[in-house]
Every structure is written in structure tokens, then in C-alpha cells.
């Protein structure tokens, strides 16, 4: 698969949120306001690129080499958790402006299935290092795109009159289904 196809596949066809259902908790949790959605999207892009490449290196050069493949889940979650912690400390010291923007979203990323999911998918699909790097970035970009689109719609829903049982999460899920339907049109393109 060429890189162009890979990019299209990651952003649109296999969109991490709407086609693979990974990272739905922050998708619903941080999409009530456009500002928080943008913050979350940036934080995910940042962490996912670093996590995706580091876990690939660890899997290929440590776990496979020493026959410890069964420790994958444990190794990945530890790497992601410590990475998030490290990124948080690093940003706080060196780039305070960025830290102020991403701050509260960083700890949430540890339990974001999108991050862990992409790391596992990179391995399952047997990507090379460069492919993992590209896939991680564009999966995260797809996450950001879907999240920001969804936040825009949710801000509009606030103004609409919604029947009581459908309010809040319920209508949000139905809306997400509509966006998912739009993304579904890309199916079969790659």
C-alpha cells in the first residue's frame, strides 16, 4: 500500500472514531465546546505520534527479540502511561504556553482507547517504522477532524429543542451516527 492510500485510509476510510469505534469516551466527553474539542484533538495528535512510534520500536526491538510478545498489552499501557506523564512534565517546564492549552487533557489520554488502539493496530497490520509513523499521525488527524466536526454540531444542538429522554448523550450518539454515515461514503475507496 502506498503512502497516499495509507493517509486516505487512516483519515477517512478507517476513521478511528467513526469507523473503528476507538476513543469514544473523550469523543462524547470533550465535544460539548469547540475549545475543549480543539485542545483534546491537539493533545491526541501530539501523544499518538510519539506513542505510536515508541511502542513500535519497543515491540520490534525488545519484545519480539526476546520472545516476550505475550507481554504486549502490559508493555504498551505502561509505555503510554509513563509517556503521558513525561510529556506533561516536559511541556510544563519547557513550553508553558502549550501546557496551558493541553494541560487538563493530557492525563485523560492515558485511558483513551484511540492511543492504545492505534499502537496495537500498527503491530497487527505489520507496518514498517515509517508506515507506523505516518499511520499514527493521520489516525490522530482523523480523530481531530471527527471530534471538531462533532463539536460544531453539538453546539448547534444546544439551540434546538430536543425531547427529554433524547437529551444529552442520547442525541449526541444519534448525531455521531449521522456523521459516521457521511464518513461511510468513503468505504471501499482504498
Amino acid at each position: 500500500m502506498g503512502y497516499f492510500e495509507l493517509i486516505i485510509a487512516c483519515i477517512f476510510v478507517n476513521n478511528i472514531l467513526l469507523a473503528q469505534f476507538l476513543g469514544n469516551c473523550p469523543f462524547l466527553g470533550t465535544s460539548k465546546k469547540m475549545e475543549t474539542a480543539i485542545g483534546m484533538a491537539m493533545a491526541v495528535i501530539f501523544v499518538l505520534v510519539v506513542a505510536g512510534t515508541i511502542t513500535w520500536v519497543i515491540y520490534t526491538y525488545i519484545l519480539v527479540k526476546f520472545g516476550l510478545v505475550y507481554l504486549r498489552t502490559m508493555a504498551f499501557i505502561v509505555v503510554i502511561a509513563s509517556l503521558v506523564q513525561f510529556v506533561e512534565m516536559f511541556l510544563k517546564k519547557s513550553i508553558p504556553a502549550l501546557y496551558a492549552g493541553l494541560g487538563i487533557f493530557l492525563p485523560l489520554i492515558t485511558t483513551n482507547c484511540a492511543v492504545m488502539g492505534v499502537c496495537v493496530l500498527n503491530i497487527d497490520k505489520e507496518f514498517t517504522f515509517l508506515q507506523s509513523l505516518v499511520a499514527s499521525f493521520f489516525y490522530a488527524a482523523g480523530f481531530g477532524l471527527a471530534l471538531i466536526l462533532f463539536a460544531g454540531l453539538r453546539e448547534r444542538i444546544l439551540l434546538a429543542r430536543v425531547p427529554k429522554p433524547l437529551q444529552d448523550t442520547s442525541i449526541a450518539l444519534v448525531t455521531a451516527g449521522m456523521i459516521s454515515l457521511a464518513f461511510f461514503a468513503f468505504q471501499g475507496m482504498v
Partner: protein
Amino acid sequence: MPKTLVQEFTKGLWQELPPFRLVLGLCPTLGVTTSMENGLGMGIATTFVLVGSNLLISMLRSMIPPKVRIACFIIIIAAFVTIVELLMQAYTYPLYLKLGVFIPLIVVNCIVLGRAEAFAYKNKVSLSMADGMGIGLGFTMALGALGAVRELLGHGSVTVWGDFSYNLSASFPSFQPFSFMVQAPGAFICLGLMLCLINAVGD
């Protein structure tokens, strides 16, 4: 407020029924419920992890320092997820292949970590077990129900492990299955409408 074992067990079945009452753990809920069988399988795997991690965390709660508790919880949960992964690989390989990436992802399922933090770390072993079983059973039922609805509407029939099956098309000849339900957008819409139904009944 001291509660009995039974109360802790039954609250997971309605009062705090995940993923409807506690809106957590949505990824597996949406991702694996293309059929009732997958939903139940995922629910059972999650229940195992939930009961195991609740038990261990509750037993070790006096030893885990509060500052690094989340890291400790994650390691314990990851250990149980690895056990489930290997067991499923050995005994239920076809199901393991179908659930795919969602099995290692139980580790980041917010329900498991949420119960560890909100319940097991503060309560006795027996109560934590009851809580884990209740929430796990509730989750399994919810996934099974969602899977059943999607499979029934999407394929026109439900089959669980080859033993139990129901054919809607046979009972209602005019019914046409619409595969929309078993595809990605159907998952969101079906869950949204089920949540609406539960809200309407609960109030």
C-alpha cells in the same frame, strides 16, 4: 452508608447499568456488538477482568500508596487482560479473532478503571467482588441486548453459539433486513435510541 452484598450486586443491573447509566466503556459497546454472540463474549471477558481486578485491588488496598494508585491499578488490570487474551487464544480462537483489537483494549476500558478507583480501592473484598460481578453482568446484558437488536434488524436472525437461534424473517415474511444496522453508523444510532428508551423508562 453500609450496604449488603445483594444491594451492591443488583445496583449494576439497573441503577448503575453500564453503559447506559454510567456512560463509560463506549468503545467496545459500539465496536463489537455487530452480533449478539460477540457482545456476550466481550461482556464475559470484561466481567472476568472486572471481578479479578476488583478482588486484587481490594485485597491490596492498604498496600497501594495513594499517589501511585492509578499506575498500580493499570498494571493489575493489564495483568488480568493478558490472562484473558491468552485464555481466549487457547480456547475460543474464532471469537478471539472476531473481537480482535478490542480484547487488549479492555485495559483502557473506563468501566474497569472506574470501578477500581471509585469502589474497590475503598471497600471490603466481598463487597468489591459483588460490585464487579454486578457491573460485569449488567455490561454483558447490555452488550448482548444491543448485539441482539442490531443482528436481528441487520441480518433478520439471531444465532448464539449455534444453540439458540431466532429467525425474524420467518415469523414476519414482509420484513426485510437492513444491513445499515450492523455497519458503523447503525451502532451509534442504535445505542443512542436504546439510551433514549432507557431514559424514558427510568424516569
